[in-house]
């Protein structure tokens, strides 16, 4: 590899700085074009008829009345799917449109295209579906072990991951047991699912869509439409948040089907309610744990059983199960572990990717256990964690040795040693539990402090061929060297486009860098998930820069008659003249391996990210109200390519964890979603959001570009258990389920 050009000194906005985001001002001004803003001459609108039942047999579908509505261009069912009526990220088990069975509340059954969205909705309501309603399977644990119906051909287990390491019969003098539950959390992105499919003269289709992974969408669309990849072209439209919820298909195949049937551009936009049915959620979980330790607080063994409710279809459940299992003991050294983790089919809404991806559920449980252990030992909760903390060279329960920084103890000490926030002031009611709602001037308020640390794998795991592609073009524009960077990696709000610019500036020593819209005319960029884009697409961009620079330096030899190590922008202009250098590079991280199916052993993850939180809460113990006073985080990011974006990610992850701790849950009763709106599904407002001081460590990972470590997910793992630990400290309650609600604080018996 060649070294970065030293001319970076003359550029600004390179790595390590926090330049303005190219999309920032537009978003703040409300001028950014999101996918729901797409418009095309002569377009029609598509809508989706969804099942009102979580489990039902379809006896018949009658389209007659719907087709009679003036303005309707098409009404489609599964019979109109030209390719294979199945899709899915890992298992193709989900019909594009239901055939004879619906397995969840909200499953798509039919599509309508009409000249106005309201016309389409009215026609949709005239479709007559005759359902034979079946009893829904709603309990994941029972779905595995019980004698209920099998929801899919191969039974109800999507995946079972066992881990067996060390003495399976180990005993210890101090033992704590716990059973924990995590409710179903929603990604709650603000931009609803939307896109525009435009039929092309070559018989193909161009789709503009908000998504996390263009190429995996393309693959699934091709399969369903029966078209080759060159006939299905995707361009990323403006994405209003994702958090995992856009990794599965929503409107993609449906809009393309309608466009091909009508011969017209078709726009689809879900409303908020439909959005709740239109994307997967975080797996609700039930987790059984037993921790055994010596009397001086060293873990001897951990045994766990985890049930993750995957809902009606597999989505990314297999990978979520692997994460919950392999990360399910936390960042602690323990020689003897037993884990059985199941991902399960039920008739609940499908669950899949969400920030934290299996590690969140396990993190709440194992950190609750560490607090319980500390209490049983009479030890300080930080001390018991530090005593068992992994470090570089530690062995994961999978047998994988941590071969880069793992500063677990240091992160814990950083949050512990921060000055405590001031005692509550009497003047600002916003700082009180209940806030401005007149609930207290301090009566009933008890402060609590809680700690947690978590671990998350970064990038795709278990032998997945995880790579990204970057195409870099260097030329002279307006007398200046200018680069255009082109990838298919999705900017979903996290700031990837800024990072791409920063990397090019640093690597080539030039100022002007344009990010080409992400589309499928360049190779796969992989998913914007698993905290991986800066690592993998960043790595690809860096590699493309190196390839371009190599060519540039060769040209420089011709121009100057001697090799040059560095070129100033003026020299680049002079070397290039009218020449254009373009390089496309595929870049992959080092390979991982599969898990042994019996023992769960293997080099499964390429990198681990660690974060710790300290939560300080004030709890009104009489009214059950919680105010998170401060939520401090320490995280190792290897290298902060964009320090402001790093802190933004840590803040965002922390708040999403806070939301799960005290308010966020999709209520599902007998398979039906009961709160599909942002009035009824609560996410934290700014008044619920505390100051969040952040310590960032930069301990370089020698295997990663610039030494960086993925940032997005780790803070989501430890936030939830830290907040709940603080509430426990204030109340003395056991609190084994999140979210914790007022009634859990006013009605539960002290532990």
């Amino acid at each position, binding site marked *: 590899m060649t070294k970065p050009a030293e001319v970076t000194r003359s550029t600004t906005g390179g790595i390590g700085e926090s330049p303005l985001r190219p999309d920032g001002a537009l978003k703040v001004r409300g001028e950014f074009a999101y996918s729901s803003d797409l418009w095309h001459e002569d377009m029609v609108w598509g809508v989706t008829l969804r099942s009102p039942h979580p489990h039902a047999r379809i006896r018949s579908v009658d389209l007659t009345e719907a087709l009679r509505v003036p303005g309707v261009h098409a009404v489609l069912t599964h019979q109109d799917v030209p390719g294979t009526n199945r899709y899915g990220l890992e298992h193709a088990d989900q019909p594009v449109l239901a055939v004879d069975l619906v397995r969840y509340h909200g499953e798509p059954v039919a599509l309508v295209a009409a000249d106005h969205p309201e016309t389409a909705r009215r026609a949709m309501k005239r479709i007559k579906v005759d359902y034979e309603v079946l009893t829904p399977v709603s309990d994941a644990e029972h779905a595995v072990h019980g004698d209920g119906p099998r929801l899919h051909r191969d039974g109800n287990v999507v995946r079972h991951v066992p881990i067996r390491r060390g003495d399976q019969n180990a005993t210890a003098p101090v033992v704590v047991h716990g059973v924990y539950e995590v409710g179903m959390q929603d990604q709650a992105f603000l931009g609803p699912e939307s896109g525009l499919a435009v039929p092309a003269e070559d018989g193909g289709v161009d789709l503009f869509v908000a998504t996390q992974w263009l190429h995996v969408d393309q693959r699934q669309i091709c399969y369903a439409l029966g078209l080759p990849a060159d006939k299905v072209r995707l361009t990323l439209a403006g994405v209003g948040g994702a958090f995992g919820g856009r990794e599965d298909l929503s409107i993609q195949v449906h809009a393309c089907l309608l466009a091909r049937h009508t011969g017209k551009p078709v726009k689809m936009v879900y409303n908020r309610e439909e959005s709740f049915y239109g994307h997967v959620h975080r797996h609700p979980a039930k987790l059984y744990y037993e921790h055994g330790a010596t009397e001086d607080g060293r873990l001897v063994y951990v045994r766990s059983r985890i049930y993750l409710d995957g809902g009606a279809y597999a989505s990314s459940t297999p990978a979520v199960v692997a994460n919950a299992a392999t990360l399910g003991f936390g960042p602690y050294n323990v020689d003897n572990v037993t884990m059985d983790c199941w991902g399960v089919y039920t008739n609940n809404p499908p669950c899949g990717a969400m920030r934290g991806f299996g590690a969140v559920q396990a993190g709440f449980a194992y950190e609750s256990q560490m607090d319980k252990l500390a209490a049983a030992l009479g030890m300080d909760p930080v001390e018991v964690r530090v005593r068992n903390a992994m470090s570089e060279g530690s062995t994961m329960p999978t047998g994988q040795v941590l071969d880069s920084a793992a500063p677990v103890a240091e992160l814990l000490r950083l949050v512990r040693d921060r000055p405590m926030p001031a005692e509550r002031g009497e003047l600002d009611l916003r700082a009180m539990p209940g806030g401005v709602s007149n609930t207290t001037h301090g009566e009933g308020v008890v402060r609590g402090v809680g700690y947690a640390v978590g671990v998350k794998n970064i990038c795709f795991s278990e032998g997945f061929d995880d790579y990204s592609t970057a195409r870099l073009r260097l030329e002279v524009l307006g007398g200046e060297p200018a680069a255009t960077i082109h990838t298919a990696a999705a900017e979903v709000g996290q700031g990837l486009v800024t990072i791409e610019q920063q990397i090019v500036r640093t690597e080539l020593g030039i100022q002007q860098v344009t990010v080409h819209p992400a589309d499928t005319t360049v190779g796969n960029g992989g998913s914007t998930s698993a905290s991986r884009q800066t690592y993998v697409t960043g790595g690809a961009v860096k590699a493309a820069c190196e390839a371009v620079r190599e060519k540039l330096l060769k040209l420089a030899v011709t121009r100057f008659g001697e090799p040059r190590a560095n070129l100033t922008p003026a020299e680049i202009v002079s070397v290039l003249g009218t020449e254009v250098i373009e390089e496309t590079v595929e870049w992959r991280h080092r390979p991982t391996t599969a898990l042994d199916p019996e023992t769960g052993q293997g080099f499964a993850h390429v990198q681990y990210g660690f974060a710790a939180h300290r939560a300080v809460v004030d709890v009104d113990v009489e009214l059950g109200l919680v105010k998170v006073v401060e939520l401090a985080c320490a995280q190792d990011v290897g290298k902060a390519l964009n320090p402001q974006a790093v802190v933004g990610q840590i803040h965002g992850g922390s708040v999403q964890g806070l939301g799960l701790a005290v308010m966020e849950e999709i209520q599902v009763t007998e398979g039906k979603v*009961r709160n599909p709106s942002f009035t009824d599904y609560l996410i934290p407002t700014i008044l619920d959001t505390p100051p969040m001081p952040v310590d960032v460590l930069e301990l370089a990972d020698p295997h990663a570009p610039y030494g960086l470590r993925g940032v997005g997910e780790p803070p989501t793992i430890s936030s939830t258990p830290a907040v709940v630990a603080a509430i426990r400290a204030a109340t003395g309650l056991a609190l084994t389920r999140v979210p914790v609600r007022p009634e859990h604080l*006013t009605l539960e018996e002290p532990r």
Partner: protein
Amino acid sequence: MREYRFERPGTVTEAVRRSGSDTAYLAGGTTLVDLMKLEVMTPGRVLDINRLPLRGLDATGGGLRIGALERMTDVAADPRVRLGYPMLSQALELSASGQLRNMASIGGNLLQRTRCGYFRDVSMPCNKRQPGSGCPAIRGENRMHAVLGTSDSCVATHPSDLAVALAALDARVQLQGRDGVRTVNLCDFYLLPADTPHLEHDLRPGELVTGVIVPRLDWAQRSIYLKIRDRQSYEFALSSAAVAIRREGDTIVEARVAVGGMGTRPWRLPAVERALAGRPATSNTYAAAATATVDGTRPLRHNAFKPELMQRTLIRALLELEQTR
């Protein structure tokens, strides 16, 4: 949304005359438009009353008269309300979101429909929406539902914060119908669900809420609206209390008490008021009085915490009121 005819009557008389069983009045639209989109409400005609002369806040002659079309934000900010009846300002400001309060009218607030998820879901039975179809909330998701005034037909909570404060203040609702005008006590204006939960108000066909009268109550200057909810802003009450106290020295002479988040309508608590009157203003008095709330509560599977929370809410409201001296 179903098709409907949009009309804009020029006078109140004309509005009332044009109104019929298939008609809805449109004020701020924050409830109506939402429910029309969901097809929970499907009026054939919508009468836009926003240009009718139903604005204004009048405080001459004691008390308040609030025009039905006044916006929540404006009423909350009015110094005569803020200083004379703080519980009203507080109830308004703790409602909904700033954007909604800028649009929503006082009359519409009083008529807003329940947030019961089954009422809002047209694929489910609901006796309020479709009389006789059943009430899935009784055995379903009912954490937010009522424990007072419920029946075997309906357990939906009345959603308004404002109405709770108005109930405590003996407010009256002014109505205009085809047969003229009349005034109804706010507490009587709301009907218990019994076996007719679709009948929510004492409103005759075509009748229009034109204003709200708050009788003069000088000691309402010492009043409070306290609200307990799942997050700090923009959420319905899990429990709330509107309390006003008249004290002489350390003795409570008179009290006004109503609670929200608990009942199928705003719930005045005369038994608590009696238990407070004539007693010393101490936490023992508050605790004893609060026990009078539990009579007649009917908790459901997921809201068994509510009766206890209601007591604690009341006690705390009384304590907080001491601090606002």
